[in-house]
């Protein structure tokens, strides 16, 4: 079995001698991607001595951080999935008003900086919070796991929603009618037909949410307080003590469950199509549910939607308020924080542009080779392209910091390392967009081109590239936004000259300058969207929302 597989691989590789240019491209892509994806991982994992890893169990603080990370992931995944399911069900199955608003609410958190919800949460419920101080005149400690739980739920439920929505949209309504026809009650149909059919979607959504919560750095950094998690603890070790070994141990401890979730996602849900029955769109209307259920669910959605709107509204308000909690009058003063950090803003946009462009181009080439060419190394290329998706941002950043800190690969403190790290962090996003694009283009189109005498490059350029414009641009747009708002990856690799907007926001938050932080965030997002608008990429962000 194995030897015949190897033989086939060898045959495929041998066929490349007819297209030497293609062979060169494959070799180049393979070496580059392999180097930037694998080398940082190897560096981090192999840095600590084996004895250091034992500390994970002996050092009570670390052990607690690991437990906390798992605990937070577990409860947030549950709540994210529940809220996501609620929204997906309401939007696909119920005949209710305000669906447009609900859709909008599921999109907002995906296109904004990861820690924005945490920041707003402080503005709402913190010591000077608008709800806690003005409305309730109460003073409660919001830092800790409850706050983080709420914030993670609001931040990451849209990712789960995207997956679950995809499944519910295509799930077969006529099967439910069939079950009713056989005498099942509404509840029985829900339990026996509906839920089993969307189980893969729910599992997929839950896993996506879990991966994001586990790897998240921004929110815990801002509001977890003494509730330490693996990513924040790794950061503390680095920034506080410059302890590479401890940071590596903690990051590796984070990598393991992340890899587990990633594998589970690939094996259970990954490639399997979410479409349940046939490609035939069903035009049947969903079986009506009793009105108390309908309006009950509507009320829940509305509550969540209002909360999300409050999160963004308060941020905007905070940006133009004199002193949060004391003086609510309008001011533009906070913008001076922003103008003082022009370089950082410029860096944010610059790095995001370069890295998303590089990621989109590389992803396109990788997807083409892995999906369309029988070259013997398809599986390997595919793995390299998606692997960074399994690596938490903090780990990736640490990896780049450690892998490229001495000759001949000395990049410490340069713009190059920032761009490279963001490029490979975004690679899976662009890659999966391109891959899905390729899978939608019938293979026969490409064969028709070959058949008419076009070689691989010509076919790629004149047939595939024009047809893949959509996925390419959406990968580009989403990557751009992710890069502008990224904190976890760059926190270990930025220097005084290469600092970016998100770092400035974090330090404003840490200094309690809420107004400045809000203003900075608003400006950063506005610039990002302005760039997207200028390049006509806004619609592209709507296509892809998960991963």
């Amino acid at each position, binding site marked *: 079995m194995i030897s015949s597989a190897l033989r086939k691989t060898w*045959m495929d590789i041998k*066929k490349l001698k*007819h*297209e030497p240019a293609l062979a060169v491209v494959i070799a180049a892509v393979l070496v580059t991607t392999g180097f930037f994806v694998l080398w940082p991982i190897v560096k981090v994992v192999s840095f600590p001595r084996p004895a250091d890893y034992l500390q994970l169990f002996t050092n009570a603080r670390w052990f607690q951080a690991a437990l906390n990370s798992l605990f937070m992931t577990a409860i947030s995944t549950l709540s994210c999935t529940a809220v996501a399911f609620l929204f997906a069900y309401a939007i696909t199955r119920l005949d209710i008003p305000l669906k447009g608003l609900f859709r909008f609410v599921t999109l907002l958190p995906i296109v904004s900086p990861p820690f924005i919800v945490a920041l707003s949460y402080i503005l709402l419920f913190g010591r000077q919070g608008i709800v806690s101080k003005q409305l309730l005149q109460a003073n409660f400690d919001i830092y800790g796991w409850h706050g983080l739980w709420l914030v993670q739920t609001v931040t990451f439920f849209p990712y789960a929603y995207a997956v679950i929505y995809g499944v519910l949209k295509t799930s077969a309504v006529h099967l439910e009618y069939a079950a009713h026809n056989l005498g099942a009650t509404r509840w029985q149909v829900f339990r026996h037909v509906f839920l089993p059919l969307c189980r893969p979607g729910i599992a997929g959504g839950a896993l996506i949410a879990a991966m994001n919560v586990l790897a998240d750095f921004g929110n815990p950094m801002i509001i977890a307080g003494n509730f330490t998690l693996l990513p924040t603890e790794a950061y503390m070790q680095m920034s506080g003590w410059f302890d590479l070994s401890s940071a590596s141990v903690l990051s590796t401890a984070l990598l393991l469950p992340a890899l587990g979730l990633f594998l589970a996602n690939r094996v259970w849900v990954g490639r399997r199509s979410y479409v349940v029955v046939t490609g035939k769109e069903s035009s049947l209307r969903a079986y009506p549910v009793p009105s108390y259920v309908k309006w009950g669910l509507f009320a829940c959605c509305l509550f969540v939607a209002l909360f999300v709107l409050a999160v963004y509204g308060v941020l905007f308000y905070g940006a133009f308020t004199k002193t949060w909690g004391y003086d609510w009058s309008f001011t533009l003063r906070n913008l001076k924080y922003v103008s003082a950090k022009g370089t950082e803003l410029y860096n944010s946009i610059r790095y995001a542009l370069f890295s998303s462009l590089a990621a989109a181009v590389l992803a396109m080439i990788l997807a083409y080779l892995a999906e369309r060419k029988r070259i013997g190394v398809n599986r390997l290329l595919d793995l390299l392209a998606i692997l960074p998706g399994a690596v938490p941002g903090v780990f990736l950043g640490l990896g780049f910091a450690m892998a490229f800190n001495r000759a001949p690969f000395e990049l410490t403190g340069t713009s190059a390392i920032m761009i490279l790290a963001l490029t490979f962090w975004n690679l899976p996003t662009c890659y999966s967009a391109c891959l899905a694009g390729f899978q939608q283009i*019938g293979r*026969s*189109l490409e*064969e*028709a*081109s*070959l*058949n*008419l*005498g*076009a*070689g691989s490059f*010509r*076919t790629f350029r*004149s*047939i595939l590239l*024009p*047809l893949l414009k959509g996925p390419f641009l959406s990968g580009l747009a989403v990557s751009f936004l992710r890069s502008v708002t990224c904190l976890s990856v760059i926190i270990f690799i930025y220097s005084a000259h290469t600092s970016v907007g998100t770092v400035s926001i974090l330090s404003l938050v840490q200094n309690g300058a809420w107004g400045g932080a809000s203003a900075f965030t608003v400006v950063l997002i506005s610039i990002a969207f302005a760039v997207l608008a200028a390049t006509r990429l806004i619609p592209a962000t709507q296509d892809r929302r998960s991963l």
Partner: protein
Amino acid sequence: MNAAMPHIAIDNVSKTFGSFAALQGITLDIPQGSFTTLLGPSGCGKTTLMRLIAGFDEPDGGEIRIDGVKVNGVPAFRRQTPLVFQEYALFPHMTVYENIAYGLKLQKTPREQIGRKMGEMLEMFGLTGLDNRLPKQLSGGQQQRVAFARALVMGQRVLLMDEPLSNLDAKMRVEVRSELRELQQRAGITAIFVTHDQDEALSLSDRIAVFDKGRIRQAGTPWEVYFKPDNAFVADFVGTANFIPGEVAGVEGTDVVVRCAPSLLRVDAGGRAFRPGDRVTLVVRPECISISAEEADGGVDAANSWSGEIVNSTFLGRLIRYRVRCGPLACIVDDADPSVRGFLRGAVRLRLDPGKIHVLPGEGGG
């Protein structure tokens, strides 16, 4: 070039997917300028063979030669074997003109030559005036003509077609058939055509290769395949056949005398050697049996004249198909001229023409 050399030679070619043998030991010679049809049920490997010829896949064993030159390993874009795809595979982002001219542009054909050839093609395929449309703005029939034009514009001597007519409606399919045949003969193209429609195969082809489960069960002219099937599969797949089991009672020169349930029949052995006592199967086409109402006196009970009872009848327009019970046998009989007599009922007399009976060795026809 040697006149006797086949244009395309397929020599003991096999292809497996995982552990599934999609093609096993396929050998087929395709003469210069001929129209060869690969006919067989769904999943028998027709498309797989086409893809091997076009170079999209490589065989696991055996050789494919074009003009005597082995093409295994030659990439698809060097083979000059234009293919008309079943789903047409028109480039959705290119206009009709760009689709058809794509191959010419790849060859760096001079501009005015492209213009001339394109004019000819658009004219020939009735696409004039549609050249600026995108494929999705065309009807199915128009798309299909674009696909043909695109494959033919470079004037190559080979044309591969994988069920090109299957997306057309029944009437159009019949119209396009004769145009296609005419075009192929005029241009002297070597055509390989895939279909699972026996009428299409019989009406278009110089030669038919009947496929089943990755093997060729018979290759021959339409006449041979229809009237002299090598085995029961071919007899059954191409047209409708009655299979009448029997036993050889005697051999007389090139004829055999076969004992079957209603009577003894003397039929041509078709070049096969039989010995008395061999089990055989007689293949009789429904239209080779004539049917008439049982005469009052019972008629002459000759060896080739059987009496039977009609079980049911189906009106097919140009004929009536009867299912007739003759003792232990059930026969399908076509009455080709129904307008004269109308439906028959009850007892009937069947007459078999021994010259039109084909004998296969073994029970069930091997």
